[in-house]
């Protein structure tokens, strides 16, 4: 849920690219929200690292009862994607029917509209589509 265009100006821009946070102490990659603290080693200095955008769908669910921001999009698939760099990223998986989603599918990131904020600010973010170029099996 987003509060206002002011909050957009803090949150909105980072979602235009897919990145993770790398701990300068232990090198572990964490999802993008871990700006303050490395959950792995307790380190407190995290830097942005852009991701190449490809990974494997290692888990997913299908949402039938959305929050207000996503009303009208249901049912939609939210996946856990283990990126090739090792970090797990949660994101919608689009371009495939919910009943056809399979754990283990190779996926790649793409830019899509996520939702409208309360003041008409449009949030774009990363969603994932099936990676057609990946080798089968």
């Amino acid at each position: 849920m987003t509060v206002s265009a002011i909050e957009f100006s803090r949150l909105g821009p980072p979602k235009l690219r897919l990145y993770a946070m790398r701990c300068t102490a232990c090198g572990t990659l964490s999802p993008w929200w871990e700006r303050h603290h490395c959950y792995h080693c307790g380190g407190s200095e995290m830097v942005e690292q852009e991701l190449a955008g490809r990974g494997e769908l290692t888990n997913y669910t299908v949402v039938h009862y959305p929050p207000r921001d996503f009303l009208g999009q249901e049912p939609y698939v939210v996946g856990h994607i283990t990126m090739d760099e090792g970090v797990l990223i949660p994101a919608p998986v689009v371009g495939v029917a919910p009943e056809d989603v399979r754990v283990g599918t190779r996926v790649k990131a793409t830019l899509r509209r996520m939702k409208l904020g309360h003041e008409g600010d449009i949030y774009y973010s990363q969603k994932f589509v099936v990676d057609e170029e990946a080798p089968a099996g």
Partner: protein
Amino acid sequence: MRVGVLGIGKTPHKIQHDKSLRDLVVEAGRAAMADAGVEPSDIQALYVGNCGSVGFNYENSTGLMSAHHLGLVPSGAVRVEAACGTGAWALHLGCTAILSGLYDTVMVLGAEKMNDLATVEGTSIIAQAADSKEEYFSGLTFPSGVALTARKYMQTYGLTEEDLAHTSVKNHHYGARNPYAHLRFECTVEEVMRSAKVADPLKLYEVCPMTDAGSALVLCREEILRDRPEVPQVYVTATQMATGTWYAATDTLADAHALLAAPAQRAYEMAGIGAEDIDVAEIYNSFAIQEPLGIEALGFAPQGEGWKGAADGSTWIDGKVGVNLSGGLLCKGHPLGATGSTQAVDIVEQLRGTAPEGMQRPDAEIGISACRGGPGAVGAIHIYQRLEG
């Protein structure tokens, strides 16, 4: 430790359009004080567990509101919040208040009024208990976040959806017998499997309803309860709290296990007992998969086998340990702030022998409540014992 449970009280747990949040608070608080045989002026501090009144009810200072309407002024009052573990945290603070020696008698009260808004609004508000700004930006909700854990468990241990359905069958068996429960119908495995999808693989009968409720306990120093031999001698003998990751993305099955297993281990040591001594357990199960996870964390079954008790009877009323003989959150609902305190009230009833017929485990003497929240961020364990003499 020994903290006396002098009185308990609760409201029905269901949709109650004719009652406001303050109505629920007053009803639960007065019931507990009446049960304890105390006056409002005897309550020296009030801990109100309420998770979402800002969102659900457009009001904030629930602790202060409760003190006024319960007639507890001028005693101190505060609102406690820890996501779905809110009620358990209110209980923990009530216990620490007594153990500190600063207070003789306090009240712990959980209350939540969720049904003045439509489901979609409620879903959005509940989502704020997790990282609704960043992680849930991906379209997740609480049910779908836990659904990811359910699928992980299924992949790891080979659990099928039919296997998990037995948990709902057991909870509904007891919910049907609980006059205070929100959902009071039995169901079969087939009916669970056919129920509407909520967040794949979780279905309607595997997720809790949104409920309006209040529940309260009057706690006191051990000596005060000893001096009231007519009151059933039930004490809280352990209270242990923990946090875990706030994110579904970083919540592994090992984390989900440790969230309750670590404080449970400390609680058993604190109470001087083991898992084998537990007669009854209230295990947080707003979503069905959390009951097997909790059963395993509390040491009642090995990891990967927690679901079996619902199918083979060992977690039913006459099994090795009676788990969620109240119908659990699946049937009582999950009135966020009240869930933890209702778990405590229900265990105390079991140890007093006053639970309704068909739910009362014979000769229950030691009970445990396990509350979780966040969905992987809060772990709370309380142990209760009936100690005569």
